[in-house]
């Protein structure tokens, strides 16, 4: 503990001692680090986000959408056929009362959702609609619906191939199902893919799951209370994250886990109120969404621009195919792995089809996007649609909600900070599981990762590390490259489970426990 105190003290002092006189020098160091990092990681980032030849469509987005479509067709539209069954499972209708006290389907779903519902739903959607117009919403919903099949596939495998240890704890995720599943099928290369996945997952956890969150949380707080150094937010966040993941202060996590769903419901509730007040415009807004989806309504890149933005945002937001959710869902107590697959397919629905669409509708209805009264098309400001007050990203969402409920931007700021925090806690676990997969389980090894994670919280909040953020986003999507390759090879196993389970459900062998 003494060592840890010293680490934080040193970090704190580093921040304090950067006086204005040294700021310039510090800035130049910052710039140098950024430049070096960008050079080193640039090729990787460019590779992941490279556009398909002759288009501006990143191949990685296509990779995710194609996979989601393949899984949807292969499993015969499982997301629609088993939708009601999924709700029934979450309600606990099929849970054995004698298993009470174990992780329920509801808990596994709620935990996974707290990792995905976050900045993507608030800031990301505003970016998509701000560039691609309301039409992007249509493609976002479509990608969300397709993504449900990807989640189903990865989460079924996550439970099926998890490790259950003698002491009763469990570990699961793509690294386990890829290595074990490949071995079972006699395929080579499983171990290599699993190691690759783990490496990308650790990088993604430190970047997108940590630094980006800390950075955005600081931006939100300083946006309300005025500008102040980021390391202060960073230290505060790191201290709380440290208390939770190292100190075992479960009470803090539990409070967040309770407040976050409440915030999510409040967010959707506020959106619904705004929609109800403007009920006369709902038809018009949907008209804009459908018309824009196929014509673009004057946005940069036309309908293709809308499509790219919509697909991209859905993929960024619900993480279907990335493999992260499989880690979270694998702790559930069930004798049938596929049941968790059914439950997990609700995740993209809640995250993308409901929450993201609410954001998009509110932005569209609020009139923040400026329309040319003569042509009826959106007015452009560079590649963006011109907005009232020139807002983009989270500021656009905030302004849109603020135009309906004046005090809501304050609630939104609190929500952003809490969402950021819960995403960090979730990703600290995903990163840790990959870390222990690579280096083995053990208190010291785990502590090392947890400390590294906390240090990155401070770095993320303090600096505007553009290239690092690019790199971490790329790492999250690199997870999807490895994971989906694994899923293609293992989807046959899921199909077997699906056929067997459907037959037993139909024959009445699998029964509800509730009358």
């Amino acid at each position: 503990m003494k060592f840890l105190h010293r680490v934080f003290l040193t970090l704190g002092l580093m921040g304090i001692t950067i006086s204005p006189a040294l700021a310039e020098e510090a800035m130049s160091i910052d710039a140098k680090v950024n430049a070096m990092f960008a050079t080193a990681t640039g090729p990787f980032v460019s590779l992941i986000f490279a556009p398909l030849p002759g288009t501006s469509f990143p191949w990685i987005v296509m990779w995710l959408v194609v996979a989601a479509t393949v899984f949807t067709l292969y499993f015969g539209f499982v997301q629609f056929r088993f939708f009601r069954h999924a709700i029934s499972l979450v309600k606990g209708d099929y849970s054995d009362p004698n298993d009470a006290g174990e992780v329920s389907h509801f808990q596994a779903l709620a935990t996974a959702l707290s990792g995905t519902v976050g900045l993507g739903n608030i800031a990301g959607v505003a970016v998509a609609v701000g560039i691609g117009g309301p039409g992007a919403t249509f493609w976002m919903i479509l990608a969300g619906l397709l993504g449900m099949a990807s989640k189903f596939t990865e989460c079924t495998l996550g439970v099926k191939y998890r490790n259950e240890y003698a002491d009763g704890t469990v570990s699961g995720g793509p690294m386990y199902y890829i290595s074990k599943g490949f071995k079972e099928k006699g395929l080579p290369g499983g171990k290599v893919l699993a190691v690759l996945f783990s490496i990308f997952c650790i990088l993604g956890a430190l970047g997108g799951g940590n630094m980006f969150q800390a950075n955005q949380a600081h931006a939100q707080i300083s946006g309300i209370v005025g500008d102040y150094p980021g390391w202060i937010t960073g230290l505060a966040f790191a201290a709380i994250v440290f208390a939770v993941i190292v100190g075992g202060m479960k009470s803090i996590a539990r409070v967040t886990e309770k407040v976050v769903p409440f915030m999510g419901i409040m967010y959707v509730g506020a959106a619904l109120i705004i929609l109800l007040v403007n009920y006369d415009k709902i038809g018009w807004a949907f008209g804009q969404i459908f018309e824009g989806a196929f014509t673009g309504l004057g946005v940069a890149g036309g309908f293709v621009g809308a499509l790219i933005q919509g697909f991209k945002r859905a993929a960024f937001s619900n993480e279907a195919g990335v493999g992260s959710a499989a880690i979270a869902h694998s702790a559930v107590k069930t004798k049938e792995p596929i049941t968790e697959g059914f439950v997990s397919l609700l995740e993209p629905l809640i995250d993308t089809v409901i929450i993201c669409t609410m954001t998009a509708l509110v932005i569209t209805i609020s009139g923040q996007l400026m329309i040319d009264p003569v042509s009826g098309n959106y007015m452009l400001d560079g590649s963006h649609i011109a907005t009232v007050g020139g807002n983009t990203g989270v500021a656009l969402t905030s302004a849109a909600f603020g135009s309906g409920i004046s005090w809501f931007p304050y609630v939104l700021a609190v929500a952003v900070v809490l969402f950021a925090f819960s995403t960090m806690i979730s990703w600290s676990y995903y990163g840790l599981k990959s870390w222990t997969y690579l280096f083995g389980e053990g208190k010291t090894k785990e502590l090392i990762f947890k400390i590294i994670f906390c240090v990155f919280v401070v770095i993320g909040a303090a600096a505007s590390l553009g290239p690092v953020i690019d790199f971490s986003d790329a790492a999250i999507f690199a997870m999807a490259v490895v994971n989906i390759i694994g899923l293609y090879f293992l989807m046959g196993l899921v199909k077997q489970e699906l056929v067997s389970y459907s037959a037993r459900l139909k024959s009445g062998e699998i029964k509800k426990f509730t009358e």
Partner: protein
Amino acid sequence: MSMKLLVGLDGHGSGERALAHAKMLAEAVGSCELLVVYVIEWSPYSFQTAEENAERHKRREEEIGTATDRVVAPAVAALKDAGINASGIVRHGDVADTLNRIAADEKADQIIVGRSSDGSVADRIFGSTIVNLVMSAKVPVTVLS
């Protein structure tokens, strides 16, 4: 006629009073079996972190172990010493629902519980466990104050 009585323990004084009352009844009836039950309050709709989920099975076993060692096993042992046929059960869940379900599964003739005196504000508004139990029970319930 043989009777089966279910005694709900809570690890506090009220549970002890319920146990004492059940013991008295058992001795009076003669041919009577006592089922000593401890329910660990738990909801499948609570929110947990991923790490808590991963360790849940282990914790559950620990919780059951602790409840058995500290509350149920000593009570069962004392009853057996007194020559009463007794057994113990530890379960997770909503207290009222779980006691009812066990009573139904085990075909108990009566449920005996103690009422703790420190009813919280939440209990007063939403109804306490005891009220829920009495309202939903399918067998007679004896509540000791």
